[in-house]
């Protein structure tokens, strides 16, 4: 069923949020910054997971969450002290719960051994401390075998009619029988009718006596409704017991005086009757007993008898009106007296006889007090009709936000949930719109319209609108990196445990937003960097103490925006890269020449070379056997860069940078040897037309550009891509001064610049393959494909093509 499946999706989303809350709370407890509400929040998170899991029949999840919840309840009620050891246990318990959730989501099997071990541990805490618990403590034993009420929901399309008593076993239709007056409170159907009613094949006859206390009404229960419920069980014969009704002057407004005896004929168990009174247990006097045998069945099949029965049913029901506040003495007294003349004096509850359907008051009784009577709602027909759902506050707030543009005050949940596919589709469409708009602009320009012409100006406005729409749509899809970051504390715990290190994770910049296309690609490299930082970066506690550092190492994970890109930094305060060792390994593995001269930075970055692994025994922790070279390659494929900087003895910092989106890009459109190329704007420091004297020859073919007081190598784009053999004279073209990720500068030479443009990124790989030096493709205004240059790769290609020191190649 779709709706239920949708809620299930919501449930798992909510589980993620709850588990994040849970972890935040537990970490606060661990850091000693938690308070009672922190513990409460953790309890609620586990409790909610369990509640939802129960609704979906996720039995294993419910059972485990129940044990967890039981321990949290003990902690919450301070029967178990939240000592550090317990908090660490709870953190691991939360990890196991997260695994259980994942298993449930993918219909997989959770790690039963781990779960069982965790349960044993949790129960140890529960029982170890629950002994001192007060007597009213909930049962502390909450093992996996403990019975848990369990009722997987089986939603079937139901035509539930909550109000109108639908046709019962006898085919009775609810009818409103107007009873003109109230002469006999002990109204009874004729004995003949009763006999017929009692005539169902072998039904039992139950005698139910029921006398509410005033508490029953104070809790908003209604005697009438309970009697109506009894009526649903079978045929009833109701007698009002008004013997306790005092004189008017002695009557108390908030007291209950009336009782009923119901003779119920139905093929049911006593429990079914008890269930009706479940909510009012203790708030009334209640006796239930069998009332002899059912009368002989003679006329059951007689149509006339059936008709009679129909006429008699539904049986009269006592319909007390909820407590009516004492009327205002002055003006209401007269009215009250008038009414009392017509019916038995009673203020609260006022019993009255009415037909089954809570129809309008047939007695003309109108409450005199202005205070609301718990008025019975309108006719059941209206209630049963499908009514539009009242707009939830969140939706209302969202609508208000759309209308007013201002954030609604105190919106509890000002979010809407949208299928991500719809947004993706929208982004694709906006991409097409951008391309079409550019095509149109180009056509208009080709037809020689002046920029000041109406059509050109209109197009300008269209372009701005298009751009705004694109920005807006991209913003919808933007997500904070929190979703990725919050998975990392667990990874750190696990890796630290596996490597016998002590590690603390500090995160920063969780709110940094980036397009969903990038978020999805962040997790893997961050995981690798963190594993590497703990496995290779951090020393063992003993080594750290010896080095004068705290036993616990710190790993910092930070996100920030820099230069139109997102930068992720993973730094540790470990030993730093052992450069002599790295160098030796690189030499041993033939990655560099033994006499290669490398800067420290170049040495550090050797770890990204294919086939490099500093661990003499290949550890499965640092990237599950995947080397940093694979990480670098996958990052580069996204137009990203990864590098490492290290200070011996002090630690290392991985820096990963990625574009903010993989959907669009701001680029400089350039002409190169008759081709049109796009150079990402983020790479360009400046573009210039160099003077002849700023270009200096260097070596047989190379040349450099004098930029202020430094010399930057000139790279002819056309030559790099093989569009031409001989570079053009740089002073006849345009130079784009670029800086690659590692900080090296280069001057790219193009023939001419067309201008800056936002372009939609199109994959080359989906139908072809990756091309070295090309990041992706795009579609220009003329409908043709243009290539987007990967400037770092171009610089690398140029270095390689030059017959230079092989070190440069290797170190790249």
């Amino acid at each position, binding site marked *: 069923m779709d709706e239920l499946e949708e809620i299930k999706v919501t449930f798992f989303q909510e589980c993620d949020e709850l588990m994040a809350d849970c972890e935040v709370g537990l970490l606060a407890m661990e850091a000693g910054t938690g308070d009672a509400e922190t513990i409460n929040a953790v309890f609620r998170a586990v409790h909610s997971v369990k509640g939802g899991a129960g609704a979906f029949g996720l039995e294993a999840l419910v059972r485990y969450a129940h044990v967890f919840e039981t321990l949290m309840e003990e902690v919450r009620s301070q029967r178990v002290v939240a000592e550090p050891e317990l908090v660490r246990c709870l953190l691991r318990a939360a990890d196991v719960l997260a695994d259980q959730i994942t298993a449930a989501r993918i219909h997989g099997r959770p790690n039963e051994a781990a779960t069982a071990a965790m349960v044993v541990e949790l129960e140890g805490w529960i029982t170890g401390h629950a002994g001192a618990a007060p007597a009213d403590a909930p049962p502390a034993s909450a093992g996996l075998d403990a019975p848990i009420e369990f009722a997987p929901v089986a939603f079937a399309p139901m035509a539930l009619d909550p109000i109108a008593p639908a046709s019962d076993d006898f085919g009775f239709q609810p009818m409103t029988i107007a009873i003109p007056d109230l002469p006999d409170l002990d109204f009874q159907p004729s004995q003949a009718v009763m006999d017929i009613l009692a005539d169902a094949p072998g039904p039992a006859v139950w005698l139910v006596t029921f006398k509410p206390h005033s508490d029953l009404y104070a809790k908003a229960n209604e005697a009438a409704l309970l009697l109506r419920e009894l009526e649903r069980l079978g045929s009833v014969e109701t007698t009002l017991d008004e013997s306790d009704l005092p004189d008017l002057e002695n009557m108390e407004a908030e007291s209950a005086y009336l009782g009923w005896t119901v003779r119920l004929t139905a093929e049911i168990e006593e429990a079914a009757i008890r269930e009706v009174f479940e909510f009012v247990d203790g708030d009334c006097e209640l006796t239930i007993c069998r009332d002899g045998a059912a009368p002989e069945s003679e006329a059951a099949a007689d149509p006339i008898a059936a008709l009679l029965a129909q006429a008699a049913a539904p049986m009269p029901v006592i319909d007390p009106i909820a407590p009516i506040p004492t009327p205002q003495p002055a003006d209401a007294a007269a009215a009250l007296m008038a009414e009392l003349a017509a019916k038995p004096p009673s203020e609260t509850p006022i019993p009255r006889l009415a037909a089954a359907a809570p129809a309008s008051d047939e007695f003309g009784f109108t409450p005199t007090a202005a205070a609301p009577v718990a008025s019975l709602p309108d006719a059941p027909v209206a209630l049963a009709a499908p009514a539009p759902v009242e707009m939830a506050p969140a939706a209302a707030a969202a609508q208000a936000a759309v209308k007013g543009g201002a954030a609604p005050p105190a919106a509890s949940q000002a979010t809407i949930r949208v299928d991500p596919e719809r947004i993706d589709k929208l982004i694709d469409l906006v991409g097409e719109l951008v391309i079409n708009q550019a095509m149109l602009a180009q056509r208009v320009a080709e037809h020689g319209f002046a920029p000041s012409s109406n059509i050109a100006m209109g197009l300008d406005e269209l372009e701005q609108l298009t751009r705004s729409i694109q920005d807006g749509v991209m913003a919808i899809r933007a997500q904070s990196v929190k979703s990725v970051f919050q998975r990392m504390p667990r990874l750190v715990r696990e890796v630290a445990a596996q490597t016998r290190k002590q590690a603390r994770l500090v995160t920063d910049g969780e709110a940094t937003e980036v397009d969903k296309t990038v978020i999805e690609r962040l997790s893997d490299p961050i995981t690798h960097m963190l594993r590497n930082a703990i496995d290779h970066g951090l020393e063992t506690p003993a080594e750290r103490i010896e080095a004068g550092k705290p036993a616990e190492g710190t790993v910092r994970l930070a996100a920030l925006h820099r230069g139109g890109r997102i930068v992720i930094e993973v730094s540790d305060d470990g030993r730093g890269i052992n450069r002599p060792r790295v160098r030796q390994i690189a030499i041993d593995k033939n990655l560099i020449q033994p006499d290669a001269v490398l800067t420290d930075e170049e040495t550090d970055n050797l770890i990204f070379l294919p086939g490099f692994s500093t661990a003499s025994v290949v550890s499965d922790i640092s990237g599950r056997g995947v080397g940093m070279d694979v990480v670098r390659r996958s990052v580069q494929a996204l137009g990203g860069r990864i590098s490492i900087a290290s200070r011996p003895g002090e630690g290392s910092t991985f820096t990963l940078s990625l574009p903010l989106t993989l959907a669009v890009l701001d680029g400089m459109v350039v002409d190169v040897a008759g081709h049109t190329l796009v150079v990402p704007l983020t790479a360009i420091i400046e573009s210039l037309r160099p003077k002849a004297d700023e270009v200096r020859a260097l070596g047989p073919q190379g040349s450099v550009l004098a930029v202020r007081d430094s010399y930057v190598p000139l790279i002819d784009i056309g030559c790099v891509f093989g569009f031409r053999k001989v570079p053009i004279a740089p002073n006849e073209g345009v130079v784009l001064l670029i800086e690659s990720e590692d900080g090296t500068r280069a001057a790219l030479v193009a023939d001419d610049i067309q201008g800056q443009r936002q372009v939609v990124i199109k994959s080359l790989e*989906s139908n072809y*393959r990756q091309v070295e*030096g090309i990041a992706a493709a795009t579609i220009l205004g003329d409908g043709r*494909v243009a*290539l987007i240059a990967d400037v770092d790769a171009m610089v690398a290609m140029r270095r390689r093509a030059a017959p230079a020191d092989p070190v440069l190649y290797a170190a790249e």
Partner: protein
Amino acid sequence: MSEHQVQAGSDRREFIAFCIGEQEFCVDIMSVREIRGWAPATPLPQTPDFIRGVINLRGAVLPIMELATRLGLQANEPTVRSVIIVVATGGRTVGLLVDAVSDILSVTQGVIQPTPDMACDRVKTFVRGLISIDSRMISEIALERLMPELDAIAA
């Protein structure tokens, strides 16, 4: 070219036949997505000679393979008569640049003869079988063998 027809005779297959120079080739019609006129492609660097470049096919970037070069035949510069047969194979969509479309064939499987064990490797690699109609000989291109090469170069 309705699917109904194709399925009507269980061993009946339909092909799009086209010319490269003097020779005739064909591809299974089920692989063909559309046939377009020639439009200049954007050349790609670092790419084998049989890839002419990429074109925009309704927002997707489509590589264009010059089939003549791929088959080791003399390639002519594309003219207005040249066409691009857009085929889907191995999860990719690729445009095949050929001189002209010549026919739509409907043949029974039995008519297709195995490629003679002869001559050039390329023929054996890319030609699945030969169809003889009247006095024409039409070679069926094994599309899936044109493409894996792409992965090989990509590595």
